């Protein structure tokens, strides 16, 4: 294991064993075979610093928070030192003309080679006037910065799919990066916010292999988004055995059974929460007793109630329409299912019910 990166790390007091341990964990998170850890360590150790430009658009800074607040100081943080982050408005000290100059210099000096990270959606309404930086619209900035980029990373659900700004009725006309840029490789790292290690993993892949990782049909790295939350959930065996929590405080909930009937979107959500977890590996939504919201899927905000089971029709308007057409059909079935649940909850003397949450 030799090269510029490991030499820098060793100088900073990071031992080879620490680096190996980090790579073993990273390989595990990327669902690579355990032997890949060593191979990654060797390739990454020998890599060089690429220039990275990070532009925030219509966003809440949650993505930046997620990345920078991953328990510090970490080796993840050090990997970030391994890239030359030439422009990041939230983190950099420079402001005003100086900052814009730094951006233009970085784009000029590394033309065709830099990695462009975008967080936030791009509003197209009123000529993009909803979100401007230095008097220029996000659309204009994106087009300019994308021109010289080797590849683009769309960080978070907003940049990947439009996210919450795009939620119905989408007042600003928000769109994703891939709606605008068509001629560059784009990696989507959705999540609201995305998992820090996914970001590091993509960077590690870029450093290790000099290319972007393999992507799925929604432009997400397969290593992290290849399987659903449900596939990797530690509560999955209870789903297979038909053991479900029916309310948030019944016996099933206390026993840690599957949260499917409480609206968990795990079966249709591709993300790495189940393996990577959150807050430095402390826990993740399902482990803390709440179903997955599906935040890494397109339009998760408009995908029906968070507490409606996936087997239930998601859109209440569609249910009404279907019921009107079919006559009794769907509507009756749904209300019947709800009534059955209510009855069961009453019998178990529960205080919180699905109906309460859906009110």
């Amino acid at each position, binding site marked *: 294991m030799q090269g510029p990166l490991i030499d820098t790390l060793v100088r900073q007091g990071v031992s080879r064993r620490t680096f190996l341990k980090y790579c073993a964990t990273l390989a*595990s998170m990327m669902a690579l075979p355990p032997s890949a850890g060593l191979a990654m360590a060797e390739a990454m150790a020998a890599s060089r610093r690429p220039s990275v430009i990070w532009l925030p658009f219509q966003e809440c800074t949650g993505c930046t928070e997620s990345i920078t607040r991953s328990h510090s100081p970490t080796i993840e943080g050090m990997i970030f030192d391994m890239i030359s982050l030439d422009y990041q408005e939230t983190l950099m000290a420079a402001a005003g003309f100086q900052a814009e100059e730094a951006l233009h210099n970085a784009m000029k000096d590394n033309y065709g080679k830099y990695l462009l990270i975008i967080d936030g959606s791009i509003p197209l309404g009123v000529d993009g006037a909803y979100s401007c930086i230095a008097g220029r619209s996000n659309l204009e900035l994106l087009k300019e910065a994308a021109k010289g980029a080797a590849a683009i990373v769309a960080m978070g659900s907003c940049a990947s799919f439009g996210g919450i700004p795009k939620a119905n009725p989408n007042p600003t006309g928000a769109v994703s990066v891939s709606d605008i840029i068509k001629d560059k490789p784009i990696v989507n790292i959705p999540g609201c916010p995305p998992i820090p290690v996914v970001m590091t993993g993509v960077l590690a892949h870029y450093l290790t292999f000099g290319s972007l990782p393999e992507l799925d049909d929604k432009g997400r790295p397969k290593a992290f988004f290849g399987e659903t939350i449900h596939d990797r959930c530690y509560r999955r*065996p209870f789903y297979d*055995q038909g053991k479900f929590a029916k309310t948030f405080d019944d016996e099933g909930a206390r026993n840690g059974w599957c949260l499917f009937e409480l609206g968990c979107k795990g079966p249709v959500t591709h993300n790495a929460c189940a393996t990577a977890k959150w807050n430095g*590996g402390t826990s993740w939504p399902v482990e803390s007793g709440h179903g997955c919201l599906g935040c890494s899927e397109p339009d998760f905000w408009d995908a029906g109630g968070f507490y409606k089971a996936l087997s239930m029709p998601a859109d209440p308007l569609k249910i009404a329409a279907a019921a009107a057409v079919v006559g009794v059909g769907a509507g009756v079935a749904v209300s019947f299912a709800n009534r059955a649940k209510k009855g069961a909850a009453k019998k178990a003397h529960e205080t919180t019910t699905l109906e309460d949450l859906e009110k």
Partner: protein
Amino acid sequence: MSLDAIPIHVINTLPVGPGLTGNAPPLLHEISELLRHLLATGETAAIDLSALPLTPADLDWLHDKLGEGEIGVTLQASGESTLNETACPGVWWVTHHNEQGAVTSQFIEVAFVPELVKAHPQDVASGQEYLELMIADL
């Protein structure tokens, strides 16, 4: 439909207990196969425990079955890591923790000595350099 209704008799019932899923016992067969492979070819292997649907109770069950061996290695490298030999020599239970003490990854490694325990030649070289400098200063 219960199992009684079909003419199949289950001989090896899965371990039962709170939180046990029955996913752990097959791993013992896999470990046994990996050990056979290690003896035959000298090739090491690992099982990524965090990649498998195992509940904490399953992991405890597996840990209990594999038992404690003679050697335990503790590594202090951005959080503690433990590499403990199980009662089956050549089977190591490897747990990586972060600085906060949370488990970041967990493996069963089948090897004579886990890779992490070995010193890297480069590190040995700088250790030797340090030693020579120290001797020169005596």
